């Protein structure tokens, strides 16, 4: 199907099913119940799952296949967002051209940054990409945020190309030469795809459950599915095989008549374009672009997502992105009142004690939990969540798996 092997086609179908049914699957608890705060089926969070999924899928093409660890990929996320915003400001609110420009711009920057950074490998490559991302951040934060209109004019570039600290926003003065300057009600217009607004949604009430179907989520999900499909094709292509060969033995590749440089650069640019696409989608869901999107912590986050899920695997990055965004948004919402509510059945002293122990790991402390989980994965499950899944599956298969593992000992030990 679609030029894929059966195994890959099955995986794609499963991911398709899960993303399409996500509004149900992520909302298992009825409204108003004690567990309802674990529901993740609201548009804002679901959009983040798939958008960061795209970011991580792209990052994995570089890091998972070639082993080159970029610490500056958030630069492309930011570039994608700014590009989309300028498209919204200058031409109109349709997201398709905006995303196209996001991909093109981040691709161009990736050619430049990749060309320079790939002159080195290992830690020096990582440092170079980090330096580029921090320069991009500094440019967006201040240098490109100065008034480029001149003191007496109040035009489009009054706050520079990036809008500095407050970010790049839509205004009613924007030209939008191919669309409307303002919505019918005089407010700022909204990103849309041929008229269907990204923020529009429908609700379905079933008993105590409320499910929300948002246009923005479904659009992002379709984009992610396309991105995922392309990444499968890349993994199975001669190009993908060359990238794995680069990770495995560059010396042999050289003496086999192949030049590793253009292959790594192509992987770098493709992954930069994925990041730009994700950035453009962020701006399409919420028309705003700020420099913090390029900050080094954002670059580090995609590294965590990829490794947590399973670098070099197809589905790992998506799982990692989902897991981290879930923790960031759900764990961080739990406060001590909620904890007291859960443990109210315990005797008072014990209740306070249990809450005091758990408290550092929730709310603002969710990073602590993430750190612990990350350490555990790196130490015990080098293959990430995907390896965890494989181990569980093997356990359930029981006896048969035992026989398999005898022949599987010759299989990759990744």
């Amino acid at each position, binding site marked *: 199907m679609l030029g*894929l092997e059966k195994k890959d086609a099955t995986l794609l179908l499963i991911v398709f099913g899960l993303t399409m049914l996500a509004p149900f699957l992520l909302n298992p608890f009825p409204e108003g119940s004690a567990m309802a705060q674990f529901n993740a089926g609201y548009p804002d969070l679901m959009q983040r799952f798939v958008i960061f999924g795209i970011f991580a899928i792209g990052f994995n093409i570089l890091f998972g296949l070639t082993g080159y660890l970029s610490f500056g990929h958030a630069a492309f996320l930011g570039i994608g967002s700014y590009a989309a915003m300028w498209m919204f400001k200058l031409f109109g609110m349709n997201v398709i051209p905006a995303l196209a420009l996001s991909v093109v711009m981040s691709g161009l920057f990736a050619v430049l940054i990749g060309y320079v950074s790939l002159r080195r490998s290992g830690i020096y490559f990582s440092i170079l990409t980090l330096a580029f991302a921090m320069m991009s951040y500094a440019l967006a934060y201040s240098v490109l945020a100065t008034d480029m209109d001149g003191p007496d004019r109040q035009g489009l570039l009054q706050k520079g190309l990036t809008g500095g600290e407050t970010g790049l926003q839509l205004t009613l003065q924007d030209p939008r030469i191919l669309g409307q300057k303002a919505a019918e009600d005089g407010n700022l217009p909204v990103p849309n795809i041929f008229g269907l607004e990204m923020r529009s949604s429908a609700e379905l009430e079933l008993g105590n459950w409320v499910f929300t179907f948002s246009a923005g989520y479904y659009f992002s999900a379709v984009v992610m599915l396309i991105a995922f499909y392309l990444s499968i094709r890349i993994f199975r*292509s*001669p190009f993908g095989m060359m990238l794995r*060969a680069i990770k495995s033995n560059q010396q042999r590749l050289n003496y086999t*008549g*192949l*030049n590793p440089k*253009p292959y790594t650069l192509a992987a770098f640019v493709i992954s930069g374009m994925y990041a730009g696409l994700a950035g453009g989608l962020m701006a399409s869901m919420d028309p705003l672009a700020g420099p913090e999107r390029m900050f080094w912590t954002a670059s580090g986050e995609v590294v965590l997502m990829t490794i947590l899920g399973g670098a070099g695997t197809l589905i790992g990055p998506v799982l990692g992105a989902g897991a981290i965004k879930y923790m960031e948004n759900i764990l961080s919402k739990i406060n001590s009142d909620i904890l007291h509510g859960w443990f109210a059945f315990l005797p008072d002293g014990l209740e306070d004690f249990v809450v005091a122990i758990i408290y550092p790991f929730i709310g603002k402390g969710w990073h602590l939990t993430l750190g612990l989980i990350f350490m555990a994965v790196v130490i015990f499950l080098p293959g990430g969540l995907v390896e965890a899944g494989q181990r569980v599956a093997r356990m359930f298969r029981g006896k048969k798996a035992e026989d398999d593992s005898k022949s599987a000992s010759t299989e990759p030990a990744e």
Partner: protein
Amino acid sequence: MGILEVKDVNKRFGGLQALGDVNLSVQENTVHAIIGPNGAGKSTLLNCLVGKLIPDTGSVLFDGQSVLGRTPHEINQMGISRVFQTPEIFGDLTVMENMMIPCFARRDGAFRLHAIEAVENEAELRDQAEAMLDDVNMLDKRNMHSASMSRGDKRRLEMAMCLVQNPKLLLLDEPTAGMARADTNNTIDLLKEIKEKRDITIAIIEHDMHVVFSLADRITVLAQGTPLVEDTPENIKGHPKVQEAYLGESH
């Protein structure tokens, strides 16, 4: 003129003259062995042929063209394949994938971005790779993870990867170093078979006299970076200078 012409090549490492005025001519379709004691400069000479090192002076012509200043992948594309002293393969890949990479290199050159078509669909290249694996008796190992194989098998695989490119010149750097007797004999048989089946020139660096005398058409003895003599195996065996410089001490 030989397929490989090395003229007046010098190479210094700091104060050490690793190669001094090396002249060497390898004739097409012969097996040319380069022997010499440890530190004689054999690997250095080989590295000068494949672009890993650049000689300080002198010239290296392959098929009438200079290889100096070219990168290893360019030199490979000219028709020189190299087997390393310790087998260099793609350990994370399967045996079949290891074979497919040189097939692509030969068909598509140093770089081609084919990112969408599946490797699986390259039936023609797959047939080539499988035929080559069959030649070296490794077809049954095609789906194995190559890092998990024995050293002897890795060596066979590396040779198969070089041969599937159909090189004009195959360079071997001590291909039997560290091998058990049986593996060494297998390698000799394999190389003999290769010679019979196709037109290929082989330059081999070797320590093991048994290997050298059973394979070589010509032998060059290198000592302290300079060729001492070049002759047929029979003449080399009895040559007094060689006895003194090499055979005497290590045999």
